[in-house]
């Protein structure tokens, strides 16, 4: 019995040490945390202005809360917000990082690195450029939405509002592009719309964390076609028809010819006809589709070469052919003289519920 008591005492002593040793007495319950979904970042002189959109968990008052604060660093501004709020700001749920256009053009490599370094911001948050001043954007948002608090996240969510005409870039991809010789990214540009709450106005080409140019939504769709992810995208074929991409496969093959990079790419699109105007044959729709895509692609590629920003990641296919020091000049030396031999093969998989003659 004494042995048992002694053992029991020992166990109790050990258990008593647990609350002291676990080091987590500052755990806060979920209802005492604010979970901002969107962080807006603008730069005013040399200070950051940070906006946080915090959904309210009060069912009686489902108003979206937007709080703003300035600071020399992002953390300082967030800290100030946290200080003035009734609950602790927890950035773990941050889904979208909205950057004002001017700041994006100035270059945002610093904050991207900061986000990756900080443990509490998910690298999976999406980078979005805002075409207007954030003050106005959030003001418009606030008046526009009452119930739906996750609208900005839904807009970019693959399972909700996203389609391949909207670019989608995560923080970690942007960070990777800053440190990679052969890859740049695009980020969506949005503004408040007239009828819808948000409007997609194209994508920004981001090179080394700096916005250098923009492309339109059609070109964004091409970008995803080149990546093999344009399924569900819709293409207008001249004046004759519009088609829906139902399947998209790609193959790329790169080699250096006369110290000039040559990339042979084949994009296979399986499409389904949605609408026709007049009475075009299937063959003509297919031919026009292939031509128009090739033309748009050539234009996109030219733009890329001009800005020396490799958003398609063409350089990836030459990493084995070039040395490390040669690769470091990929953007400035090799990309401008690169040649792309693109074949687009379209297959009209079906023409909907109606029969069209002249396959």
């Amino acid at each position, binding site marked *: 019995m004494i042995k*048992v008591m002694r053992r029991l005492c020992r166990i109790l002593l050990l258990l008593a040490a*647990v609350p002291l040793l*676990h080091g*987590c007495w500052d*755990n*806060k*319950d*979920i*209802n005492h*945390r604010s*979970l901002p*979904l969107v962080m807006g970042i603008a730069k005013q002189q040399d200070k950051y202005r940070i906006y946080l959109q915090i*959904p309210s*968990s*009060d*069912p009686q008052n489902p108003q979206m809360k937007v709080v703003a604060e300035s600071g020399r660093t992002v953390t300082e501004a967030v800290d100030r917000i946290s200080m003035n709020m009734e609950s602790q700001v*927890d950035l*773990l*749920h941050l*889904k979208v990082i909205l950057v004002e256009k001017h700041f994006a053009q100035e270059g945002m490599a610093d904050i991207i690195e900061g986000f990756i370094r900080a443990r509490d911001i*998910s690298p999976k948050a999406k980078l979005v450029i805002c075409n207007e001043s954030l003050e106005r954007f959030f003001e418009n948002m606030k008046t526009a939405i009452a119930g739906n*608090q*996750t609208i900005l*996240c839904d807009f970019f969510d693959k399972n909700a509002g996203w389609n391949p005409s909207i670019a989608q870039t995560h923080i970690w991809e942007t960070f990777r592009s800053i440190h990679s010789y052969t890859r740049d990214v695009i980020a969506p540009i949005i503004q408040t719309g007239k009828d819808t709450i948000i409007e997609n106005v194209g994508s920004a080409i981001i090179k080394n964390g700096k916005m250098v140019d923009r492309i339109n939504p059609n070109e964004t769709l091409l970008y995803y076609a080149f990546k093999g992810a344009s399924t569900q995208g819709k293409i207008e074929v001249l004046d004759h028809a519009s088609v829906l991409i139902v399947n998209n496969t790609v193959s790329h093959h790169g080699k250096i010819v006369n110290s000039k990079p040559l990339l042979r790419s084949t994009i296979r699109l399986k499409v389904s006809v949605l609408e026709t105007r007049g009475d075009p044959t299937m063959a003509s729709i297919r031919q026009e589709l292939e031509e128009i895509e090739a033309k748009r692609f050539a234009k996109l590629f030219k733009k890329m070469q001009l800005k020396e920003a490799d958003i398609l990641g063409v350089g990836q296919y030459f990493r084995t052919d070039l040395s490390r020091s040669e690769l470091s000049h990929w953007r400035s030396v090799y990309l401008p003289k690169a040649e792309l031999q693109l074949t687009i093969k379209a297959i009209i998989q079906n023409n909907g519920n109606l029969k069209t003659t002249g396959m």
Partner: protein
Amino acid sequence: MPLLHELKLRFASDDDIFFQPDHILHIPVVFIGLTSLLDLIQTKERLTKDAFAKQGLAADDAGLLRQLGESIDTGDLRSAVTSLLSGKMIVFHKPSETFIAVEAASKPLTRSVEEPSDESVIHGPRSAFNEDIDTNLGMVKRQLNSDKLAVKSYAVGANSRTRINLLYLENQVEPALLTAIIGRFESNKELDVCNLQQLSRMLGLPSWAAISPYIRTELPQDTVHYLMRGKAVLLLDRFPCALVLPNDLWSMLAVQNDLNYPRLFTLSFRLLRLAGVLCHILAPGLYVAVVSVNPEILRIEMALTVAQSRLGVPYPALVETLILLFVLEMVMEASVRLPKSIGPTITMVGGIILGQAVVSAKLVSNLLIIILAAATIANFTISGFVNSISIRLFKYVILLLAAFYGILGLLSGMVLVCAYVSSVTTFGIPYAQLARKSRG
């Protein structure tokens, strides 16, 4: 007549005993027995018939009486007392100073074979063990028609003698297990066995283990199955369960009656029980971990809903969970204890208190009610009440760790529980051993 006198002295404080002068045929005798254990009239009738049939076989009266039962030496008080206590009657023939213990018609002190009360069976054999050890043994033998079934009988205890039967299949049982059990029985014969803790002490099993060393079953069907899997079965007198040694993890998930269904259903029943075990162990911990330590793993919509449901709840998640778990455990314990007629009342009161009032009083969040209700229901999918108690206990370890370390704590809690479960052995046979080398 020293023995008669000694018996009178021995039972001086027990008015239950009778010394009744009477005759068998023409022989004058004294019947000695315990009124509460035997039916005197029937016994007398039987004895007379028996004596009449054997009349010609013996030369004298004493010889005839000896034919009726076992004679007891005049000096052997101990065996006389044992005979009386086990329900036999002693016939005393004064002229020859002979004491004879005869089998008596016993009073019906045992209920008849009934349906199991703690283990329901759907569409399967329905008779369950009762308190009478001989009935139980008979039921096992009925179920298992084999000449390999060995039965060893022991009577243990210094103050109160308890009959214990040890059953095993000769060609299946683990020899080491058998020698260990028999050895313990032989060396600890003097220990009283009135409950299972005492039995554990007698068998030298750890008394603080969180997992019971026995599987308890009241179904002969299950008992036979365990026998065929090489386990040893103990039947205790006055104990309506068979105790199967050693326990194993599989008994938590498998019920014998599963095998009376098509394979697919058997498999899905067992998977369901596994899911039940995991749900019961993990659900409360997961709630606490997700709500107070790692809210980032929730989808944002879910996070908002959870935050909404906790709005205005005064306690941290751990305290909230512990309070409600405490109430739930009390309801469970109370409904075991309550008479069947009041049972539904407590269910209703418990349901209203837990389901409605606690939430509208904002003492706990309604999400927690759902989670704990699911976990409690999951607990009852586990086969065997004793197994479900072990799981109920493990839940708290995981809950505490989850409250401190979140998801990481949940995981390390699982590792801890798995490590403990793997460390448990009974007579050298691991609890977590699922497959056994087949013998013969």
